[in-house]
């Protein structure tokens, strides 16, 4: 019998657990490959073929095409691997944060700064 307890949800937060790790395995494996420069070049050269090689499902492919982080998370993406995908386009974590919260990058940076007051 499982003894772990179901935790209350934390708004705006996805806990990357075994369920998500299974769901996002192909997507995360592709993003993990981006540690290598040759893999980044291969993706840039032919995105569709590269996604096919890693066996991404349609939801994951659509999220990659859209460069949409919330969709990527929903498709099982883990932020540590997704950061390597974002890095291909030179995006910082402020760019990624702004996209997910619907703020401009400047507004997101100001939001961060204000929390230090």
């Amino acid at each position, binding site marked *: 019998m499982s003894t*772990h307890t179901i935790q209350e949800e934390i708004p705006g937060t996805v*806990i*990357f657990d075994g369920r998500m790790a299974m769901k996002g395995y192909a997507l995360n494996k592709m993003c993990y490959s981006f540690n*290598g420069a040759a893999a980044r070049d291969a993706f840039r050269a032919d995105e569709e073929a590269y996604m096919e090689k890693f066996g991404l499902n349609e939801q994951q492919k659509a999220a990659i095409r859209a460069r949409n982080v919330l969709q990527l998370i929903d498709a099982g993406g883990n932020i540590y691997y997704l950061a390597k995908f974002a890095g291909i386009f030179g995006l910082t974590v402020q760019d990624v944060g702004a996209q997910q919260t619907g703020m401009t990058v400047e507004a997101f940076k100001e939001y961060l700064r204000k929390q230090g007051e």
Partner: protein
Amino acid sequence: MARIIGGLTSSHIPAVGNAYARKMFEDPYWKPFFDGYPPVHGWLKENRPDVAVVFYNDHGLNFFLDKMPTFSIGAAASYENQDEGWGIPTIGTFEGHPELSWHIIEGVVNDGFDVCSCQEMAVDHGFTVPVQLFWGDREENPIKTIPICINTVQHPLASPKRCYEFGKAIGRAISSFPGDEKVVVLGTGGLSHQLDGKRAGFINKEFDLMCMDKIVDEPETLAKLSIHDLVREAGAQGAEFILWMAMRGALGDKVAEVHRNYHIPISNTAAGLMLLETRA
């Protein structure tokens, strides 16, 4: 016997690697962060530790989801900083201390912590940024290192209490090593931050400051927190505070706070720095 002389904590934000490479120490954005470090440099110069045992978390460089150990200990002669994919410059290799590594591995397994041992271990910013911040040029300030990786990628994560107890076991093992090494223990990462989801950008100053206060004399209180508490109060990646708890466990019962710095924001993160000295 080897002796633990103190503990250091530092955030390990990747952007620091870039700022360091560009020597932005006096830049208005970076100055309040970098200005925290010279007092630690002075302490290190005075106390000259031989080995740094570094609790850190891998961010998808050495480990993937195919095999995800909860606790893993480096047992190599050297550790290479490899390309992480998004553009921080790599900073070469770090010297290891394999004899002490294996002594620690034997000690903690005997103590009930069944770790993964790694004779090859690529280290990412989680390890390299703090070591660079504390030691700078390693030719000038040589330091042997032992990376100890704790999983923060895939839940379930080890609880703060478990990490604190793991740190204690590491401390016991170091203190029984037949050598005259002086050792510092690093807890890296944190403090509050969240990179992913609609709550991205979340920071919690009040909670961070409470953690910095209590980790000195009341770590047992913090050991009562759950991972879920940490994610809720410190953000999804604020769970890295378990690395600080492991560091604190290794230092033993009594410590004295020598220095601290806290600054919001560096990148998306509340940056925390502490220097704790062990007391008999």
